[in-house]
C-alpha cells in the first residue's frame, strides 16, 4: 500500500504490490458479501424463532428480539416431536441395511468380475436418477397388498431399495481403489468369498461406511416425496414440518423454530463430518 516511495526501484515494485493488495481485498469483499447472503436465511430463522408472538411483526422483521424467549422452540418441539421420533425410527435401520447391502454389492462388483456386470451396473445406477413419480403408483399398490402401506416398516423398505444404487456405487468406487494383490494374498491363505470380505475388505471399509452412512442419513432424514405418499399417517419430520407450515394458525416464530429443529440433526452431521459429506456428494456424479 505504501506506494509513495520516490526511488525508481520502489516505483517499479510498488504498483504491483498495490494491485495485488487491491485484488486480494476484492476477493475477500466478494466472498464476505456472498457469505452474508448465504447466512441471511439463518439470521432470519434465529432472530424470528427467539421472538415471542407479539414481537413478530412486519416492521421489526430484521431486528433482534427485544427479549429472548424459548416459547416458540417449546411449541415447535411439541408439534414436531412425533415427526422427529418417527424419522429417527426410520433413518437408523434404513441407513444401516442399505449401507450393509451396498458394501456387499460393491465388493462383488469391484472384486468378482463376472460376465454381464458391465450391463447390470449401469442398469442399477439408473435407479437413483429416475423421478420417483414414475414408480409411485405401483409402489403404493404394492405396499397396500403386503400390508405395509402407511407404516414405518414400509417406508424403511422403500428407502433401502431406492438407496441401493448410490450405496453400491460409493462402495464399488471405494473398493476399486483397494489393490487386488491384497485379496490375492488372502486367497492364497485359503480364504473364500466371505473370508476375504470379513478379514481383508471389511477392516479397511470404515471410511466407505462413514461416507455412505452420512449420505443415507441426510438423504432419508430430508426426504419428502416418499414420506408424504407412503407414510402420511405416521408423519416423518419433513411431513410434520410441512403440515405445520401449511396450517394458517401456526405463527411464524414457531415455524422458524420448527425449521431449525428439523435441520439440526443433519446440520450437526455436516459440521462435524463435512469432509465425508462432500465425498458422498461428489460420488453422486458417478465418476467421483
Amino acid at each position, binding site marked *: 500500500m505504501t506506494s509513495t516511495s520516490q526511488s525508481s526501484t520502489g516505483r517499479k515494485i510498488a504498483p504491483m504490490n498495490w494491485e495485488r493488495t487491491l485484488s486480494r481485498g476484492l476477493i475477500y469483499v466478494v466472498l464476505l458479501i456472498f457469505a452474508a447472503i448465504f447466512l441471511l436465511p439463518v439470521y432470519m430463522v434465529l432472530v424470528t424463532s427467539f421472538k415471542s408472538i407479539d414481537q413478530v411483526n412486519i416492521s421489526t422483521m430484521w431486528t433482534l428480539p427485544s427479549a429472548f424467549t424459548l416459547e416458540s422452540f417449546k411449541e415447535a418441539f411439541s408439534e414436531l416431536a412425533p415427526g422427529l421420533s418417527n424419522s429417527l425410527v426410520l433413518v437408523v435401520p434404513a441407513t444401516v441395511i442399505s449401507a450393509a447391502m451396498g458394501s456387499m454389492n460393491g465388493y462383488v462388483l469391484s472384486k468378482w468380475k463376472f460376465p454381464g456386470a458391465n450391463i447390470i451396473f449401469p*442398469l442399477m*445406477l439408473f435407479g437413483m436418477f429416475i423421478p420417483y413419480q414414475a414408480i409411485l403408483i405401483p409402489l403404493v399398490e404394492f405396499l397396500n397388498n403386503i400390508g405395509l402401506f402407511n407404516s414405518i416398516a414400509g417406508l424403511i423398505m422403500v428407502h433401502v431399495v431406492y438407496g441401493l*444404487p448410490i450405496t453400491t456405487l460409493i462402495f464399488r468406487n471405494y473398493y476399486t481403489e483397494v489393490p487386488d494383490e491384497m485379496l490375492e494374498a488372502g486367497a492364497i491363505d485359503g480364504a473364500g468369498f466371505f473370508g476375504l470380505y470379513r478379514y481383508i475388505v471389511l477392516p479397511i471399509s470404515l471410511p466407505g461406511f462413514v461416507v455412505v452412512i452420512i449420505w443415507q442419513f441426510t438423504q432419508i432424514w430430508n426426504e419428502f416425496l416418499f414420506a408424504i405418499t407412503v407414510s402420511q399417517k405416521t408423519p416423518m419430520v*419433513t411431513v410434520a414440518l410441512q403440515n405445520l407450515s401449511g396450517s394458517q394458525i401456526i405463527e411464524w416464530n414457531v415455524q422458524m423454530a420448527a425449521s431449525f429443529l428439523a435441520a439440526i440433526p443433519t446440520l450437526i452431521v*455436516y459440521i462435524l463430518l463435512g469432509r465425508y459429506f462432500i465425498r458422498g456428494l*461428489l460420488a453422486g456424479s458417478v465418476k467421483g
Partner: protein
Amino acid sequence: MGQSKRDRVIAIAMLMPTVILLAIFVYGFIGWTGWTSLTNSNAMQRLSQQPAQYIGLDNYTNLFSGLLNNRFRIDLVNTVFFTLMFIFFSLAIGLLLAILIDQKIKGEGIFRTIFLFPMALSFVVTGVVWKWLFNPSSGINRLPELVGLPPGNFRWFISQDRWFEFNWQDFPVIVAWFVVALVAVIGAWLLLKRRTQIGAFILAGAILISTWILVGGAASLNIMDRPEKHGFNVALFALVLAAGWQMVGYTMAMYLAGLRGISEELREACRVDGATELGVYRHVVLPLLAPITLSAIIILGHISLKIFDLVYVMGGGDNLFIDMPGINMFFTTFRGQEFGQGAAIAMIMLIMVAVVIIPYLVSSLRGESKR
C-alpha cells in the same frame, strides 16, 4: 484372482437380492406405470372393481391439448424456464465462488462450510424459510429499509406477471426451431473441429428441417384448436433463488475439486510464458473444467426436472405460477385419483430425465473402463 468356481457362484448369489429388488422396484414398476398411463384407471374404475380399460395415448394427448386441463402445459413451460435459469445461476455463482476460494485465502474452510451447509438441509426446510423471506409484505422486501431505502415491492413467488408470452398452438414450431438451432450448433462445431464432411451433412439436415418448418410441416403437428397463452412466470425467480441458494454449494464443491486437480506447475508455466492471471483462467483452467461443467449441468438438470418438495412447500399445489410436473402428478394421482392421467405425467417426467441421464451414464462408465 484365484477364484474358485464355488466362490464365484456365491459372489453372484450375494448380488442377486439387489438385482432382483431393483428389477422389480425400478423396471417392473416403471413398466406398470407405463401400462397404467395407457388406461383409464381412476377412482370410478377402481370403485366399480372393473379392470381398467386400454385407451391408447388418450392420457397423453389430453395433457398436451386437453380442453379443461391446461395445468400440464403450464408445468412444462415452467420446467423449461426454471431448469435453464437454475442451471445458469448455480453454475455461474458456483464457479465464481470456487475460483475465489481457490486463491489461497485465509479462512477457506469457513467459507466452504458457509457455502455448502444448505446442501445438508431438506428442501422442505429451505421452502419454509424462504416462504417467510419471500413474503411480499415482510421478508427481503423490507431489507432496503434498513439502509433508508423504500421497501421492495416484488411479489416473489405469488407474482402473477408473465413475460415472453406465446401461443401454445405455436409450440411444435418453437420446438422445431429449437431443434434446428441445436443441430446447427453441433454442425458448426464439427466444422470448426475440421470434421468437414459430417459437419456439412448435419448442417444440411438443419436446413432441411428449416424448410420443413417454413412450408408448415411443424405447424401441422398442432392438435389444439384454440389459442392458449403461456409464458415465463416471473414468480419462478423466487424458486430459482431458493433452489440456487441450496445447490450453489454443490457446483462450487465440484469446481473446487476440479481446480485442485489442476497442477500449480501448469499454471506457473503459463505465467512464465507471459499469460496474465485472467489469461491463465481463460485459456487453461476453464477448458480443463469443461467436463465438470457438463456433469454439473446434467446433475442439476435432472434435479430441476424432478423438483417436488420445494415447490410443494412454497406453492402447496395451488400456485400454478410455480407449478411443476412432479407436483401435478402427485395431486392428479393421490388427490384427484386420476391414476391413468398421473401415470402419463410420470412417464413424461421419466422420459425427460432419461434423455439427460442415459447418455451421461453410458459415457461416464465407458470412460471409466477405458481408464
